[in-house]
């Protein structure tokens, strides 16, 4: 038989159930909603308006994820009262760095959903990744070759 081209097998992606992956994304969105509240307090003008817009987007995404989890017969995990902030936010620069960090976390969480076998969930998560990657690039001022991948 002729040798054929094939996809190189990679180390197995950590198996995640659809509900677990959605819960993880929900947790990332909750963290973003909280974190934008912190960052927004140190921003002004157009940056603050952008942060407000992105905060609203994360609230909407959180509600969408909660509804998807409920539709799968599970209970969405409630948001925490407090989230650790990776570094002190004292000015606009550190606020923007926090916002970029939050978006990176959201992108990585949606990437885990892409690993589940449901085509519908894959597409949903891939499109959500595009939104968060664009927001991260906005705050970073640069683009990334492989958003969400380490």
């Amino acid at each position, binding site marked *: *038989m002729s*040798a*054929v081209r094939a996809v190189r097998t990679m180390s197995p*992606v950590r198996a995640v159930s659809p509900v677990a992956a959605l819960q993880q994304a929900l947790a990332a969105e909750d963290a973003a909603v909280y974190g934008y509240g912190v960052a927004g307090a140190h921003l002004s003008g157009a940056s603050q308006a952008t942060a407000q817009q992105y905060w609203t987007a994360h609230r909407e995404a959180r509600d969408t994820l909660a509804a998807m989890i409920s539709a799968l017969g599970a209970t969405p995990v409630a948001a925490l009262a407090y989230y650790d902030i990776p570094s002190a936010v004292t000015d606009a620069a550190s606020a923007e760095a926090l916002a970029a960090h939050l978006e990176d976390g959201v992108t990585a969480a949606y990437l885990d959903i892409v690993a589940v076998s449901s085509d519908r969930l894959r597409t949903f998560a891939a*499109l959500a990744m595009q*939104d968060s990657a664009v927001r991260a*690039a906005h705050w970073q001022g640069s683009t990334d070759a492989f958003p969400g991948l380490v």
Partner: protein
Amino acid sequence: MPGHLPRRRLLIASATALPLLLATAGCRSADLFAGPDPLGGRPPLAHGTVALEAAITAEAGLISRYQSVISGGGLDAGESSLIATLLAQHQDHLVRLRGRLVVPAGASASVAAQSPGTATATATATPTPAAPARIQHPIGTLRDAERQSADSLVRQLTGVEPALAQLFASIAASDATHAAALSALGTS
């Protein structure tokens, strides 16, 4: 001539006797042809391989577009800097995608080793947009190509293995950021 069967009768007897001989030997004629059909050609590529080759082809096409815009000149310093950065990231995409393709010795290299600009589209590859009839700013054509690439990669997620789906989704997200950066360049 006595003792000699006519050639025609010999052929008829052989054709009649062969199935009988096979039946008595416990063989079915199909058994003789079990295994790969040597005349059947190469087996079809797996869906994931087809999707990966399509992504490689599309990525090579994007790189060619960027190279054409750079060689066309007329960019200001800000445009040149951004386009060089985005081109480098597309080259990273191509390296990563090609790294996922296994090309055994003896198999056709196909898109795996072609230089950007020489790859031909496969059946499922979304061709990069044809040159529009009206003159469009090169930044705008790149932005549109980035959006189309992101959309195409998301469509390729169906049915591919998880790690490859994640690579496609990540590259699609990168392409989306490129489109946004190019749009911002156009409005700045």
